[in-house]
């Protein structure tokens, strides 16, 4: 069992949720998203971000507009569509369920779980 593969699988699941949440707070261009993810300690390969944004855009979850930049080529600023808002909200509920569930499962005291096992 490759540990890296498992790690990346875990990260990947929440990646979309994180990105959509960042964009939900306000228009963002890929550079912003990467900086924010990195500062939060979430490792993100930039090469993964661009295809993901592209797919979300094709699925009409995101739209973007071009903004001329003074320090380089024009930037794509992304924002959520209505469909995207709904999508993000669904992901949020799923994540919350997941987080509490995982929390419950992983943090459960050892004795209690053994106790449970015994009773069954």
């Amino acid at each position, binding site marked *: 069992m490759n540990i890296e593969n498992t790690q990346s699988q875990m990260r*990947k699941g929440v990646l979309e949720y994180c990105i959509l949440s960042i964009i939900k707070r306000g228009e963002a261009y890929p*550079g912003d998203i990467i900086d924010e993810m990195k500062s939060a300690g979430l490792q993100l390969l930039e090469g993964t971000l661009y*295809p*993901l944004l592209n797919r979300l855009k*094709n*699925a009409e*979850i995101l739209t973007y507009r071009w903004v001329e930049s*003074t320090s*380089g080529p024009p930037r794509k600023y992304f924002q959520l569509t209505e469909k995207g808002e709904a999508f993000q909200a669904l992901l949020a509920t799923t994540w919350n369920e997941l987080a509490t569930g995982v929390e419950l499962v992983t943090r459960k005291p050892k004795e209690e779980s053994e106790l449970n096992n015994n009773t069954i």
Partner: protein
Amino acid sequence: MKKVININFQGQVIAIEETAYEMLKQYIERLTRFFAREEGGDEIVNDIECRIAELFGNRLKHGINCITDEDVASIITSIGQPEDFDSDYEEAASEPGAAFAESREQGSAAAPGDEVRRSLYRNSGDRILGGVCSGLAHYFRTDPVWLRMIFVLFFGFLFWVYIVLWIVLKPKVLETNVSKRLYRNPNDRFLGGVCGGIAAYFKIDSWIPRLIFLLPLLFNLIGMISFFPLNYLFDEVDFSWNINMSMVVVYIVFWIIIPEAKSVKQKLEMMGEEEYIRSIRERVSNNVATARSRGDGGEVPPAVPAYMAAGTDDSFEKVSIDEMPPHPSDAARPADHSASANRAHVAPPSERPGCLNGFILLLKIIFFSFVGILALVMVSAFVAFLFAGAQMMPLKSLFIDPGQETTLLYASLILLIGIPVVSILVWIARRVMKAKSRPMIGLISTILWIGGLVAAGILAAQVADKFREESTLERSVEMMPIDGKSLYVDMMPYQDDYSEFSIGWGMDSDIDHLPYTNVNEDSLLFRDIHLHIRNSNDSLFHVRTIAASSCRELRGAKADLEEFRFEITQQDSLLYLPEFLMVPSTQGFRKQSITVEISVPAGKTVEVSDVLNNYRNQEPPSVVRRRIRNYTRTFMTAEPPHLEDEESEAGSDVV
């Protein structure tokens, strides 16, 4: 020791070590190959390139002279090798819903590379309705505008083709594959920038397409002014409104089907690269010149080109574009080949309006066409008034006294007609020159125009005031006794020539009461002569004249009445009435009239010549009628005699 080269990367000039450049080039090639399978792969690669260019820019800003191997390596690590995100991609593709499964299917079904681009899709990145035309254009590698034009022209049967294609074809964001496209030019526009775009496309001055669009309109206006001296030249040509309206329709169609050039890339496609760079260079150097002169003297020198001054309102928007360093043509730099090749299919898909925006656009078009038609109607009305005013001028002397009233008339005419015409011309000139409008001028001209309105009102009141009081003057005519049974009444024709007050349009025939002038133009000749026949109280014929006129006050009217000349002459039993009532022309038109009253004694008759029929049939003015009624009431109890056409049998009814 390493060789450093300059590359043009995503519109930025970047100094880079040759080895680093090779590394970058290979990396981008790998990325391109990797994403070729995915929908919108080019776009992803382009996004990544943009990011790299930005990172380079940041590095160079921090005082580093050139991009080194290490820089490129660290950037590549942070972005990641294609094989690193390979696994992510495969699985992520199916996650965000059914749409992605579809895209994956397309990716695997289509052969890689060029074949993907050659399949027929609806282009969702550049669309007016469904993107069918744009997709077809992509397939045939032409400008979507031409296909849209074909679809508009053959709307009848291509409509169904369009609908079918809309349903059948799958949407996909496609990159432009033509280097030159027809766009609407936002920097050179009068209405929608259509003509500016056409001019940029064909590299001609923008007034040429504008003139072509406006020509039928101009001819039409000329045709509308029927007294235009050269009008007979255009008799053969039918500049009907149909041609006109079709030009308007063509313009509106163009407005809809031609997208506006928004991004730098689109402007490049619109003008051609060299033209665009030249225009940027001009503008930048002008900006610099202006800024410098502002710095020096604090004022803009008069030497600043007109379009610079005109462009100040939107120059801020352009600054960001202008600041991008213009890059020389790619062919000159073989080293840059791959980067520029990739850049070539970066078409930021134009943000085409959705359904709502389309509706708003439609409303705008309707609004503008209404405003345009309204403005046109206003202008032609003013022109018509101008000419009508000229036609009315001969009548001026009839109603308007010299001096203050004439001054008032000219002032109000100039203000009322001149100001709108001048301001419309100025507005058009400003739009053409793109000069900034000055609200002060608008305010002043509005005030002046209202002043003209007030002057016209005062004048109208003054003229109307002249008809307030009506006065009459009676005179009896000395009569020789008549031997016979009958008095014969005839007309004494006016011996000299006379001229009419004509107001054109053949209207003079409708206005009977307008006077004529004599040869010297010192007298007015009125035809307002009424003949009234009544019973005499004694055994003699009596003839009276009742002159009537109106004036501001009765005294003035009386004075005017004294000046009337209407000399009745008698030759035995023949009574001659002059053809005209003569009045000095200084009086002007004051509803002057004269009523000839003939009293017929019992047993005698009066015979009226048929040339005077008109006089008998006309009712005398109300003041005179009132007078006559008062007069007759005292003496008569019976009905007034009925007057047959040729004679009156009076006397028998008298008590």
